[in-house]
C-alpha cells in the first residue's frame, strides 16, 4: 500500500512539474484572462438578461477550456513516453503496467482538475463580486463538470494508446463536443433516417460518452434549481462506470502494445 502511494505520488508530481515547466501554466493564465472578458462586460450592461447571457457564454468558455486542457493532458500521458523511450526504464522499475496507467491517469486528472478549479474560482468570484448568487445547483454543477473532465481525460488516454496524437485529439474532441451539443437530439435524428443509418446513429448514441448528461450550465445561470439527487447519483455512477471501462481498455491496449 505504501509502495503504491509513493508510486502514485511520484506520477502525480511529474504531471504538475510538466504543467509548470512546459509553460502550460501561462496558457492557463491566458485562458483565464479570456474567460474574464465576458464576465467583466456584465456590469456595464446592467440588465439581468444580458448578465445571464454573458455568464452562460463564460461558462461555455470554462467548458471549452477545461476540455481542451483535459484532452491535452490525457494525450500527453503515455504517447511521449513511447516517443522518448522513457517507457523502457519506467516499465523496468517495480511497477505494474496497470498501476502505471492509473497513476498517470491520476496525475493528468489532478492537473486538469486544478485548471478547472482555477476557472471556476474566476467565474464564481466574478459573479459573487457582481452581487450575483448561486443556489443549491452550484455544488451539483461543479461535481458533474469535474466528473466530465475525469471522463474526458480517460477518453484521451485510451485514444493516445490506439492512434496518433493528432487523430486522437481530433476524434476525442469531435466525439465529446458533438455529444455535448447534439447528444440529446440523436434519437430523434435517427428516427428520420433509413434503417441502416438509424441503427448506426443509435449505436453511436448507446456507446459514445454522453457529455450532455453533465451539463448544468442552464440551471446554474437561470436558477432552475438542482436536479434530483437520484438523477445526480446516476450520472456520477455513469461517469464512474464509463471511466472504469475506458481505463480497463487502456490497460489492455498497454499490455498488448509492442515494446
Amino acid at each position, binding site marked *: 500500500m*505504501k*509502495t*503504491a502511494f*509513493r*508510486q502514485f*505520488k*511520484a*506520477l502525480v*508530481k*511529474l504531471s504538475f*512539474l*510538466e504543467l509548470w*515547466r*512546459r509553460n502550460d501554466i501561462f496558457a492557463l493564465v491566458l485562458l483565464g484572462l479570456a474567460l474574464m472578458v465576458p464576465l467583466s462586460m456584465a456590469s456595464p450592461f446592467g440588465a439581468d438578461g444580458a448578465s445571464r447571457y454573458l455568464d452562460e457564454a463564460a461558462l461555455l468558455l470554462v467548458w471549452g477550456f477545461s476540455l481542451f486542457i483535459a484532452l491535452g493532458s490525457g494525450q500527453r500521458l503515455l504517447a511521449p513516453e513511447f516517443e*522518448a*523511450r*522513457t517507457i*523502457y*526504464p*519506467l*516499465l*523496468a*522499475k*517495480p*511497477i*505494474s503496467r496497470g498501476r502505471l496507467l492509473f497513476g498517470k491517469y491520476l496525475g493528468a486528472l489532478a492537473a486538469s482538475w486544478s485548471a478547472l478549479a482555477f476557472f471556476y474560482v474566476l467565474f464564481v468570484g466574478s459573479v459573487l463580486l457582481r452581487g450575483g448568487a448561486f443556489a443549491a445547483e452550484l455544488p451539483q454543477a461543479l461535481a458533474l463538470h469535474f466528473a466530465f473532465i475525469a471522463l474526458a481525460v480517460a477518453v484521451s488516454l485510451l485514444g493516445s494508446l490506439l492512434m496518433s496524437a493528432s487523430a486522437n485529439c481530433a476524434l476525442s474532441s469531435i466525439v465529446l463536443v458533438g455529444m455535448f451539443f447534439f447528444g440529446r437530439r440523436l434519437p430523434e435524428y435517427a428516427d428520420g433516417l433509413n434503417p441502416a443509418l438509424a441503427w448506426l446513429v443509435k449505436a453511436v448514441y448507446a456507446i459514445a460518452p454522453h457529455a450532455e448528461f453533465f451539463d448544468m450550465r442552464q440551471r446554474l445561470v437561470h436558477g432552475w434549481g438542482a436536479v434530483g439527487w437520484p438523477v445526480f447519483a446516476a450520472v456520477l455512477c455513469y461517469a464512474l462506470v464509463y471511466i472504469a471501462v475506458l481505463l480497463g481498455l487502456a490497460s489492455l491496449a498497454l499490455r498488448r502494445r*509492442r*515494446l
Partner: protein
Amino acid sequence: MQGIGNGKCQICYNIGAMNDGNTLLGPKGQRQSPSTGDCAVRIEGVVREFGSVKAVDGLSLALAPGEIMGFLGTNGAGKTTTIKMIIGLLRPSAGKVSVFGGDPSDPAVRARVGYMPEVATYYPYLNARELLAFYGGICGLDAKLVKARTDELLESVGLSEAARRPLKTYSKGMLQRAGIAQALLNDPDLLVLDEPFTGLDPLARIHFRELLRSLREKGKAVFFSSHELGETELLCDRVAIMKHGHCVYQGAVKDLAGDGGSNLERLFLKTLEEAK
C-alpha cells in the same frame, strides 16, 4: 575452462563451460537438464518471434551473481530483444527467462534489477535530482533514502555540479550518466545495460568501468550489450556473441588471450565469419 563468478551456481558454471551458446551443457559436455539454482539470469531455449521474423532463436545462457557478462553482436542480432526479455518488457515466444529464479515481469523481481536503455532522453523539463526522485518514487523507496542515494549517485557519475540543470541542457554523455544513476538508484542485484558506453568520454568510461567492477566486488551481476569490444574485453568475465538471433559463442574473456593470443576483436570477427 574454469567456472566464473562466485561459484554458488552450478548452472551458471555449466553454461559458462559451453561454447555453442544454445544448449545447457554439463562440465564434461553432456546435455544438462535445467535445475534450480541461484542464477541472476537464466535463459533456456528462448525464442522470440515478431511475426515471421525470429529475433532470438534458441538462446540459452546464464549469469551468476558477482559476474559481468558482455553481450555482443552485429546490429539486429537480437541483443536488445534479449535484454527486453530479461527486464520483463517482452515475453519469449518459446523457452523460459528467469531472473533470480522468478518471472522478470514480476514487480518483486524487478525491484532487484536496474536497467539503462540504449537511447533515452528522459524528461527534458526535469533536472537530474528530480529525475532520480521520480524514479525513486516509482521504485517505492522512502524519500529520505532516495535523497541520500541521489547525492551518492550523482557524485559517483560526476553529475553533482549539473544536478539542478534541466536535462534538456545535457549532452549525450551526461544523459547517459543520468541513465546510469537511475539504473543504480534501487541498489540492484542485477544491472542490465544496453550500450552503456555510448556517448561517454574516455574519463567517464574509466570511472564507469571502475564503478561496474566495484559492483561486481559487492556480488552484483552485470549484463550489458555493447559494440565497444575494447571496453568489453577490459571489463567482462564472460562474453556471448549473437548473430541473426543465435548465440554463436559463449566463453570466458580470460581464456581469449590463451587462445592463440587472440583478442576479443579477432575472436568476434572470426566467430561471425565461421557462423556464416
